[in-house]
């Protein structure tokens, strides 16, 4: 962490987005995480993504549970409401918040302990509901704040700093989300901002549950030789299968894409993402193919990254429930109570 507060002044040459804001306007408090923590890179990618998407800061809700990852919402967009809830319960709070106001953008930042152990149930059920949110897992395979215990995402054979290697099967959030029917599933690496920013942008714009599993090494407890979540291990075994280019409705598609290697996906809100396939045979709209590919590459020792699955057809929670468009929390009371006369009428059935 740094003790030097950054001055809140924007250099005149800093680019501004459509709201006239610079990236500085999307920054948050100074990080208190360890120097070199992968999570800080994810924070930087998040700032870039919401800046580029012209999101009004106060229309963003930053949600989290408990753990190192869950501290990060304090480090971006100070002008957005944040909710640092209890351990593993971010999905339920976000579900309720979203139920009350469907017009806001919800970014949940969680960790592998928060989402795959204590909060596994909530993670799973938020997916089932196809809650419209961007769900980021900052995945480092360890518990940081309690000093280095393995988490449920630790790979078999991965070595801790001290003690015996992990022997339990890892829970892979991507395969889990795939089996549960999540509608946007991506994996990335905190060390690859170029890939991460468009993946996050796509996740935010996607209507429904969007998971971005980010390998985000823990420099203090899990960045050593023998760890499968270290910077060096991740770089060595990185398999870039699909990159994403995010195209806003106002923009033309300028880049030229080779047939078979590019695939446009039209999002609900009118935006488009272009999937650039580095492996021509990969079909990110097929759950079965995605499963097989992930499994095969995992067995080959690779960490598959990119937008691995997308389904724009399934309706998100409010659509499934046929809820009114006005945020439920903003409905005028007159529309909500049936009145005294109706109460009289209704009570006929209880006489």
């Amino acid at each position, binding site marked *: 962490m740094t003790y030097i507060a950054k001055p809140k002044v924007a250099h005149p040459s800093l680019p501004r987005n459509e709201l006239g804001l610079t990236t500085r306007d999307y920054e948050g408090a100074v990080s208190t995480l360890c120097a070199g923590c992968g999570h800080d890179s994810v924070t930087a990618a998040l700032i870039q993504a919401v800046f580029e998407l012209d999101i009004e800061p*106060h229309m963003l809700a930053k949600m989290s549970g408990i753990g190192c990852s869950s501290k990060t919402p304090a480090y971006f967009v100070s002008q957005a409401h*944040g*909710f640092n*809830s209890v351990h593993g*319960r971010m999905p*339920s709070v976000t579900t309720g918040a979203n139920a*009350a106001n469907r017009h806001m953008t919800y970014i949940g930042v969680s960790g592998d302990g928060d989402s795959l152990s204590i909060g596994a149930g909530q993670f799973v059920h938020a997916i089932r509901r196809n809650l419209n949110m961007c769900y980021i897992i900052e995945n480092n395979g360890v518990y940081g704040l309690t000093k280095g215990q393995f988490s449920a995402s630790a790979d078999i054979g991965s070595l801790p700093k001290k003690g015996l290697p992990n022997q339990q099967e890892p829970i892979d959030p991507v395969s889990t989300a795939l089996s549960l029917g999540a509608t946007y599933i991506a994996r990335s690496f905190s060390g690859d901002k170029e890939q991460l920013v468009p993946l996050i942008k796509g996740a935010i714009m996607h209507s429904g549950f969007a998971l971005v599993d980010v390998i985000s090494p823990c420099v203090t407890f899990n960045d050593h030789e023998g760890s499968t979540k270290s910077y060096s291990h991740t770089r060595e075994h990185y398999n870039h299968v699909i990159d994403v280019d995010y195209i806003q409705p106002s923009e033309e598609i300028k880049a030229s894409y080779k047939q078979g290697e590019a695939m446009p996906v039209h999002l609900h809100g009118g935006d488009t993402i272009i999937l650039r396939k580095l492996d021509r045979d990969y079909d990110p709209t097929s759950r079965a193919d995605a499963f097989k590919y992930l499994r095969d590459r995992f067995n080959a020792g690779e960490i598959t990254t990119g937008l691995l699955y997308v389904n724009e057809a399934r309706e998100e929670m409010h659509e499934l429930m046929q809820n009114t468009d006005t945020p439920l929390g903003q409905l005028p*009371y007159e529309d*909500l109570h*049936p009145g005294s006369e109706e109460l009289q009428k209704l009570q006929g059935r209880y006489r």
Partner: protein
Amino acid sequence: MAAVNDVVIKIATVNGTGSASANGLLRKAIFRMGVPVVGKNYFPSNIQGLPTWYEIRVTGDGYSARSDRVDIMVAMNAQTYAQDLAEVEPGGFLIYDSTWPRSALLNRDDITIIGVPLSKMCIEHFDGARARILMKNIAYVGVIAALLDVDLEIIKGLLEETFADKAHLIQSNMEAIHLGYDYAVAKFPCPIPAKIEKLDKTKGHIVIDGNTAAGLGCVYAGATVGAWYPITPSTSLMDAFRDFCARYRVDPETGKRTYCIIQAEDELAAIGMVLGASWNGARSFTPTSGPGISLMSEFIGFGYYAEIPAVIFNVQRVGPSTGMPTRTQQCDLISCAYASHGDTKHVLLFPADPSECFSMAPIAFDFAERLQTPVMVLSDLDIGMNDWMVPELEWDDDYVPDRGKVCSAEDLEEMESFYRYLDVDGDGIPYRSLPGVHPKGAYFTRGSGHTKYGGYTEDSAAYQEVLDRLLVKWETARTMVPEADIRYSQFNKAAILTLGSGDGPCIEALDRLEAQNIGLNYCRVKAFPFTDAVKDFIEKHDVVYVVEQNRDAQLRTLLINDIDADQDKLVSVLHYDGMPLNAGFVVDQILAEIKKGRAA
């Protein structure tokens, strides 16, 4: 002893045999004769096959409690026959299905035993196994109608309402009624002396259960988000909310809903959703029972400390652990009052009947939003799931929800800076901003240590300042909660103090004691924290009999803890067998204490 318009009918059946509608028909018919009734259901944690009972107390005096005797037993369940036979008051009646022979050993000569070949008659008159089982239930209603002189025209009228467009069902049900009725009239002297005579005492009243009333109350309170995990005995509250919303909250043209009900994966998630929705400006609630409160506790503490509204209905059942899930108790008073780790205390409301379940719903939302804290409404299985006669529910069309201290976009625009936890008004209640309203209102909601400005802190003084301010808010809550129902009958040194469903039995007990020239004063608390009037009431008496339905005298503990009540004055009357409290128990316990030398 039974008398005209003072008779208790208990119907013993097997769970899942469809007796509920027959029992409801009988209870409604008596109500329509203008005679007050109480309907209590004693049911097992089971779908089909285990014993279940329905008890109808006909009470011309209009008491609301369960009776302590049974005058007429309808013994339809061979499994519990011996027990049911033993329960009948001397001079009472037992009706059984004489299609099959009854063991000669199981007899009593101090009661009248009436055999009616119900199965045989129904097999002869109806086709199909299901119809025969259902009609057997209707036939015993006919027998009771004959014995008690229940108006058959009223029964017919009720059937016509129920089966408005199914004429053949009206006819077959009436046929079943007559099978029982005619048989009884032919074979036994009908009606019996303790019959039902028409009165005019149910006008302006309804019969309703507390969960239905609470669900309706949530609709009227303007709740838009309900999250829950199914648990007996609270499930029917959300079922009711769902039914009323389907009726009142769906746009007839677009089919769009102005409510959102989420069946959560567990209670931990249910309360998380409620907090999330309330944080974001919706009136949100969850119904649950004791085990659910245990699971919600961490989040309830979060809501208290981060100061987020939430409304929780706890329909209490027998604990601890899973306990007896279908029996009633008031056993979560302490666990709710102090739910969560750390220093927390919560506003509790104690409805005494379904009418208060309805009227306290908007109060709970108002308090939750005004005080920015979780508020719990503690009813119980007896109130929530049984049929109570209460005055018709009323609604004041001038009601405006109290959304509390919420800054508008304009307020925020004018402010230099917004600080979430500042006690601007000195009442311990800070100002709140809602997400999505204005960038200046943004703050970071957290359960970790925070300063009055809302920032993270590990500074002792700054942390303690917020914690102490929450105590100021607690005292503000004390001035807001509904006043206790206090009745001074005359100058007495002794009194009864109770809460919730203890009200009915205690009021009846007061009458019975009065009849023995023992006049006691009365206090029924309606909320926690306790008001100054409650403190004053206890101070004025030498002895206060604290009547509650749990083993450990939890209400008494709260009185001592919250208002420093003199524990030597507080004498416990504890009922915790899982059955609803009755007046006889209260009277016996108090008389025993008086015998020991306690003041009366």
